[in-house]
């Protein structure tokens, strides 16, 4: 079934079975492999993207049900200039790196919703899993991202 989506600012027409999750359309049809497959059950968050700016786990989201603009890690910036990416680099957060796209997207959505999140807000928003155990550095990166983000806006 043909369907038109807006992904990273571009209109794209895709052909996919209606039940196909957005994740696989992004990865296989649109050549956007930054969004990762981790569990297929919405448990780990490696597949986190934005739909209309809100964090969504794309492995459970049927593409046919997507209404609104999709943003993936590739659409955050083309040069790592997004404040969250800069913060992640500064904190040197990744180890294997596989979950980090999802982590970054979760953080970016949180900052979009609330520029000055509390610790409780951070805990509520940052629930993605990391098998390498980079949670400590991710927390540092999130704090840094809050600063960089507000500097950018100021």
């Amino acid at each position: 079934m043909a369907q038109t989506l807006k992904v990273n600012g571009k209109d794209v027409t895709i052909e996919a079975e209606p039940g196909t999750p957005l994740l696989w359309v992004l990865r296989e049809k649109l050549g956007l492999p930054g969004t990762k497959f981790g569990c297929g059950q919405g448990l780990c968050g490696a597949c986190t993207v934005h739909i209309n700016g809100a964090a969504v786990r794309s492995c459970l989201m049927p593409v046919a049900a997507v209404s609104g603009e999709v943003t993936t890690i590739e659409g955050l910036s083309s040069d790592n200039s997004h404040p969250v990416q800069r913060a992640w680099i500064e904190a040197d957060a990744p180890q294997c790196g596989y979950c980090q796209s999802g982590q970054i997207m979760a953080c970016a959505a949180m900052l979009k919703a609330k520029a000055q999140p509390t610790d409780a807000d951070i805990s509520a928003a940052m629930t993605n899993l990391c098998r390498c155990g980079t949670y400590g550095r991710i927390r540092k990166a999130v704090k840094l991202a809050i600063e960089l983000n507000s500097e950018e806006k100021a």
Partner: protein
Amino acid sequence: MKTDQETNNPVGLSRRSFVQSGAAAFAGLVLGFHLPANPMRRSEAFAATGTPEGKASQEARLNTWLRIAPDGLITIYVAKSEMGQGIFTSMPMLIAEELEADWSRIRVEPAPSDAEFNYTGAPFEVTGGSTSVRTTWEILQRIGATARHMLIAAAAQQWGVPAESCRAEQGQIVHAATGRKAGYGELTAAAAALPVSAIPKEPKLKAPSEYKLVGKPVKRLDTPAKVSGKPLFGIDVVVPEMRYGAVRHSPVFGGECANFEELAKGMPAGTSLVKVTGGIVAVADSWFTAKTVVLGLEPRWTKGATAGLSSKDIEKKLRTAAGGKKNPVAATKGEATKALGTAKVKLEAEYSTPFLAHTPMEPLNATAHVRPEGIELWVGTQSHTLTRLLVSQATKVPQEKIVVHTTYLGGGFGRRAENDMVLQAVEASKAVGKPVKLIWSREEDVQHDFYRPASFVKMRAGLGEDGLPLALTASIASPSIMQRWTMFGGLPKSGIDMTTIEGLADMKYECPNLHVQTVAVDTGVPVGFWRSVGASHNAFYVESFIDELAHAAKQDPYKYRRALLEKSHPRFVKVLDTVARMANWETPPAEGRFRGIAIAESFGSIVAEVAEVSVSAEGQPAVHKVWVAVDCGRYVNPDTIAAQMESGVVYGLSAALRGQITLRNGRVEQSNFHDYSMLAPHEMPEIAVEIVESGEAPGGVGEPGTPPIAPAVTNALFAATGTRIRTLPISNHKLTGKKKA
């Protein structure tokens, strides 16, 4: 990402162009070296079992490569795999240090699987056993130093000045007397043209006091790529005309699909079914389609090796085996049985740990293209050379006709030392005549791993008047990892699997009478290397039991350990003292908080950890803080060491708190992260890491953080509740919130 056949390795190098063009075709300087083999710790351990490694290491050939382009960009080819442990930064640091390179001009690429990129000269190399840096340290230094000497010689020749009057500095050769300078890029042509006699056999290495990079915290080179969403991993590979494969295994280990022909005939249009080792693979034009189709089938399976088996059966089998009187003796000293008989205080305890899955974040995958002229593979593997060897053995295609493109690994932890998914991808590609990217679902990963072996141990001790042990005995039963690894020599005739007893038979605590026995028990459940291997369970056994002895002797657990190490193991004492100072051990923790301590040596490094815990009124344990002191000898990147200690703690903590793979009716009961769950962000303890400087030979870093955490936590829980946890995971125990009087 480019989709051209030549360049579609997402992490860089095209082997074909590299090998065909050879060194000379590169504009710039390319160095290859004949260097003596550097023995791995594992090969020492296995020397007793008569593996071929010792012999093969004599044949060490061209080892590793360094390329300096005319623009000064330096590319380092690393023949070890980057799976998060940071070696794509620390290994280049060693080269750059000696080369006096400008660190901002360093690039890293994975080396091809050709023999000339083999560091050790062994038949294959594995990125495992926390060996990457410590076994290549000297080789990497010499690569850098040799290149530096050659660049100096080239500059000196051009300027007509003595080489001794020139020096290398930040990517330039400088002649101070005349103020002349030349960038490495400008000198590469001249350096490459130098006669072989100009290549120093024993280049002078820098003194550690002159180091500018090594030993200093350096940011990872791969971070920018890893935050950009760039295709880096095996799962991201795209090859023209590629099809997607989804696997379904026999739910019982060792079963086979009995109605394959029937199923294959009924496949929907545009899909096909392939029988592969261990199961069936549906191939389609998208992975979701392939997965949906394969899950919709109704395969019948033949009776597998574990048919009818449950975890209770395995426990019983291990317990019975551990009680065997004639089990092979792994270590003995004095007369333990006799000494036990005379001891005033006797302790006896049974401990066990479960099977554990690895669950790297990137689901298992491999892309294979089987053609008449050869096989091309794209895979995040912990051993591209072993991948090539095993695919060659399985297909009878000679190794020279097999190309392995190594990608970044989305976690390895030992799981990607295995090649089951690669062989399945090869089988699928061969059957459909197209390249196939095979991806396992998370459920297949959890249910078809090579698990950390379950094990069971009986421990006994007798204490003297002073409370210190007079005798210690241990009898451990476990499935053998080495039995299947015939290329490492298999399970030796002695019946002693080194991986079962490491950290147990060689425990460092002073004790005049010691007796350790072990027995390999086949359960039919596949087992393999899991981060820190035998130390992952033996540290729990030894460090829990020592804690029991300390409490029985009414002594402080830290001081008790110290007393048993003080005479012969000063490095251990220093590490213990450091962690005790960090945790403020002598000062009681806050109300409701309790601490436990543990120390373990693994992979050449000594790590002590203190965990601070609490138990809620509902009996829910929480780990709030972990202090880590590590002596890993000489080290490269302290920031990586801190990261790896944190990582090792979290990996071990997930397992200690609730990690278990159980069987019912021959099948694994767990299936995804809801029932085989890792630590979540809100459970993350605060972790402090301190490196204990010893200047000793470099030790491993990727694994040694894991072993001490389980006993540190259970020892703390004993302090909190009076309940001694002798079986992991902790979630199987009912804890009371209040300390018993």
